[in-house]
């Protein structure tokens, strides 16, 4: 492995400076569970690794009436061991508690999951259906990017030279909101999704009509897919808004999601299997999201 320096800045500015100096030859790590594996696998070489866990903004968690904001280096366990976050953001917790095993969850987090931009990322779909935003700081200041616009290709993101994701901000879900994430893997634990679906629903006060919804797909395209949305566009074609909560409407959403998927054949699954899984997982996650939404009415 090519020798690299270890840098552990204590401020966002310090990290941005090092990342800017090295460009593609440096990467931040939080858990390191993707970057170190990719380095050893020879996917790329680096001159510097920037450990961002000593930067307070990247490690803090705020959960209040405005919503949830967590630093990009916060590990999965810090989310799912927090009773408040677990109760209020179960769709995000679904993913945080199934990424890797306990050892991985001690280190890996959703910020890294997002920046790694794997097509199969479990954590990105849930963030999309909660309308989460990545807060980014770089040499030219700060900006915010909606999570659905963040990944541009496998392993590629909107981050420019020197830019760092500082935190992920999730708006407080209104009453009648519910979300869920499920994936299919051939094992019980510790595997990469053959297909995954995150769904969120916003129900009216009766709990019988969809006011809004989001369905995000994992492992069935080069990036996570938000159904009914063309990345970078302003339009969004909501698959369920205005429809009554019924088997028929949920089945139609499953078909629509199936059509939105653009999977490939590989060692984990075939195109046909993946399309089928998207249909099934969409119906299941909408069902669970409805259940959760009604419980919160």
């Amino acid at each position, binding site marked *: 492995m090519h020798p*690299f320096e270890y840098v552990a800045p204590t401020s966002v500015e310090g990290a941005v400076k090092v990342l800017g100096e090295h460009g593609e030859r440096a990467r931040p790590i939080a858990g390191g569970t993707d970057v*170190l594996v990719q380095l050893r696998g020879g996917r790329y070489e680096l001159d510097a690794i920037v*450990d961002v866990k000593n930067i307070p903004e990247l490690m803090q968690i705020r959960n209040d009436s405005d919503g949830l904001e967590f630093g990009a280096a916060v590990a999965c366990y810090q989310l799912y061991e927090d009773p408040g976050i677990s109760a209020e953001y179960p769709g995000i917790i679904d993913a945080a508690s199934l990424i890797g095993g*306990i*050892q991985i969850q001690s280190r890996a987090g959703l910020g890294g999951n997002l920046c790694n931009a794997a097509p199969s990322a479990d954590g990105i779909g849930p963030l999309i259906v909660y309308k989460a935003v990545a807060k980014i700081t770089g040499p030219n200041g700060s900006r915010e990017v909606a999570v659905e616009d963040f990944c541009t290709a496998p392993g590629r993101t909107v981050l420019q030279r020197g830019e760092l994701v500082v935190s992920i901000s999730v708006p407080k879900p209104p009453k009648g909101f519910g979300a869920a994430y499920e994936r299919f893997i051939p094992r019980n634990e510790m595997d990469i999704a053959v297909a995954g679906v995150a769904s969120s629903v916003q129900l009216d006060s009766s709990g019988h009509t969809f006011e809004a919804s989001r369905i995000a797909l994992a492992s069935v395209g080069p990036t996570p897919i938000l159904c009914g949305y063309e990345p970078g566009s302003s339009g969004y074609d909501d698959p369920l808004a205005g429809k009554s909560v019924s088997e028929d409407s949920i089945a139609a959403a499953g078909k629509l999601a199936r059509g939105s998927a653009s999977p490939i054949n590989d060692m984990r699954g075939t195109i046909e299997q993946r399309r089928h899984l998207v249909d099934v997982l969409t119906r299941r996650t909408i069902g669970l999201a409805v259940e959760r939404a009604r419980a919160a009415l």
Partner: protein
Amino acid sequence: MTTKTVRNVHVRTTINGQEMEFLVPPYMSLLDALREVVGLTGTKEGCNDGNCGACTVDLDGRIVDSCLVLAPEAEGKEVNTIEGMATPQGLHPLQQAFLEEAALQCGICTPGFLVAAKGLLDNEPDPDEHRIRHWLAGNLCRCTGYDKIVRAVEKAAKA
């Protein structure tokens, strides 16, 4: 490819309750530092990519795969390895239960399982079978079929 050399990093840490200082290349894993620099070879290398859990150590109270921790990250932290489990008075109840239940065959995964299982029992003294299996999903064993390991952890929990 650049040819500049990278300077070693000074790391000060506490390993099994003992303060230690060592010099390592900044790209060295905590696993390699433990085994090759500190001389604690109880922690094993399996896959070296975070799948098998053979290299599990406790880092500030959380179990981690030491192959996916850079040694300099241990600066100022507490590391507990398999070498810290038994005391002069005897084996840790988990070690005793692993022996009694024959929860090992070749033994390469055993230190990782023991450190991982200790991480569970330290925080949850009475886990059910499902919880034990879920907790240990990040540790692979190709010999036992897991049943004996799960039984040993259950036994240690009751001890």
